[in-house]
């Protein structure tokens, strides 16, 4: 998708407006707070393999979040991620949001791209009801995908109790080598500005959602589209579609998401599909069993995978949880018990 001078002008105007707000005379760090989440995992992989299983400790996340209202209606949030005991350090997001309009917000900076629910809302380990991500949110939609751009969002009343939610964004976009794996497309490579790719080709998309609290239901649909490779002869578009739904009642949570990726490539277009269905029931204040089935359908049968996961959560407190998961992985070639994984995790928000 090629969006040139008009888009650049619009982006410049909004960025300038946000910058002016940020430079307002009463700018001061009011009510900034430090919060975040951390976890510790013990994983036994290749359970049952002849060559023996692998046992590994990981400090998967120690992520620090700073957020607060910095001046008037200007809000700031940033998350610094220390992952895998510090081997991966980065800025997950850092943005400014103007909250002065009724029901409507404008954000600029680096934010988690609002596509579906797992990528933006559910992936933090103290929120995610299982230890890791489901199929579909690694090699298809590259969770956690955050990018630099402008994000419009809002929640609007719809009748007596329902709300309508919207997200719309324009970001630099996922870019990578023609036909290669989407997960490697993340990053804000400014060097690519030299050939015009980053200047002119932005990705756009958003999510429309509905929340019906009396029906204990919320659902929505998402789209993302943008140029993913800039060749001299043609642009190659990458497009995601997603649908999500959640039923929540009296401790029962049933959640599903399904996504597709259409990746144009000179060697033949690639279509990838994936998703999950998850059910959890909090029987009392401490115990919550969880089951999840997730699947990915990739070009080439050998890449297809499915996983059935069993989990048990013990809530020490509203923010601290011990989780025990067992993943039964199935390849396209059939059930292979040596691929199974047992994971114990302690996670807390702080």
């Amino acid at each position, binding site marked *: 998708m090629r969006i040139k001078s008009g888009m650049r002008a619009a982006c410049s105007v909004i960025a300038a407006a946000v910058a002016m707000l940020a430079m307002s005379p009463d700018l001061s760090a009011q009510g900034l707070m430090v919060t975040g989440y951390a976890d510790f995992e013990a994983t036994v992989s290749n359970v049952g393999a002849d060559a023996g299983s692998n046992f590994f400790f990981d400090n998967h996340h120690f992520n620090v979040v700073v957020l607060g209202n910095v001046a008037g209606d200007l809000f700031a949030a940033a998350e610094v991620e220390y992952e895998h005991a510090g081997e991966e350090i980065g800025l997950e997001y850092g943005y400014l949001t103007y909250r002065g309009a009724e029901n409507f917000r404008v954000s600029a900076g680096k934010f988690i791209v609002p596509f579906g629910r797992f990528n933006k809302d559910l992936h933090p380990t103290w929120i995610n009801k299982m230890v890791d991500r489901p199929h579909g949110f690694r090699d298809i939609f590259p969770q956690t995908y955050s990018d630099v751009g402008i994000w419009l969002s809002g929640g609007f*009343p719809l009748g007596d109790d329902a709300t309508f939610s919207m997200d719309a964004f324009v970001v630099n976009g996922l870019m990578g080598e023609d036909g290669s794996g989407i997960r490697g497309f993340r990053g804000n490579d400014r060097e690519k500005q030299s050939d015009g790719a980053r200047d002119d080709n932005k990705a756009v998309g958003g999510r*429309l*959602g509905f929340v019906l609290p009396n029906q204990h239901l919320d659902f929505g649909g998402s789209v993302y589209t943008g140029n993913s490779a800039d060749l001299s002869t043609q642009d190659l578009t990458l497009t995601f579609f997603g649908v999500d739904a959640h039923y929540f009642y009296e401790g029962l949570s049933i959640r599903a998401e399904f996504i597709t990726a259409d990746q144009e490539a000179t060697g033949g277009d690639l279509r990838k599909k994936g998703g999950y269905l998850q059910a959890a029931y909090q029987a009392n204040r401490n115990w919550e069993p969880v089951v999840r089935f997730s699947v990915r359908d990739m070009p080439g049968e050998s890449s297809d995978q499915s996983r059935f996961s069993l989990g048990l959560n013990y809530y020490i407190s*509203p923010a601290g949880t011990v989780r025990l998961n067992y993943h039964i992985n199935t390849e396209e070639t059939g059930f292979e018990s040596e691929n199974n994984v047992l994971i114990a995790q302690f996670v807390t928000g702080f």
Partner: protein
Amino acid sequence: MKHIVKSMTLTLAAVVVLLPANAMAQVSGVQTWSQRCGSCHQQQPANRYTAERWESVVSHMELIAHLTSEQTAAVLEFLKSGAQEVAAQEAKESGSLTVASLDGLFLPQSPTGEEVYEQNCVPCHGKSGKGDGPAAVAFDPPPSDFTDPEGTKSLEEMLEIIKEGRAGMPAYGATLSPEELEAVAEYILNL
């Protein structure tokens, strides 16, 4: 693909323009907290943060959970009403950048009925139990007046109401232990 993006943009614009800004009935903070916060993660107790920090947290969650402005104001009022003022004072004295309070992260082993009541019931029913808490205005019918002799309940009836919830009051059967339920029910009956 362009026509899909164009259609989505037009739909968004139409909905934003046409939706009445105040179409929703009076919003309840405790209901919003129960329904919207609790649908994604464990509900955090109101005393987890100071009132000041709840402003930061709720501003963030307004964006993430797509709350309407009215819902944001209502849930913030509800949470601030239960926040610990001691921590707020401490935050003001120690400067602008402070680590979030760990209060509420680990629950006390055996809270008294009064403690459970103050953490969960005061925002709506008020300290004296007259149904005049700061969030009471959002309820129709209003929260029960526990001091009204006409509304006297048995221990079993009170336990049932607290466990199951009613008329906009969230159910606490899954969030309070049997000991806490009994303690708070007895406390209420003695107000």
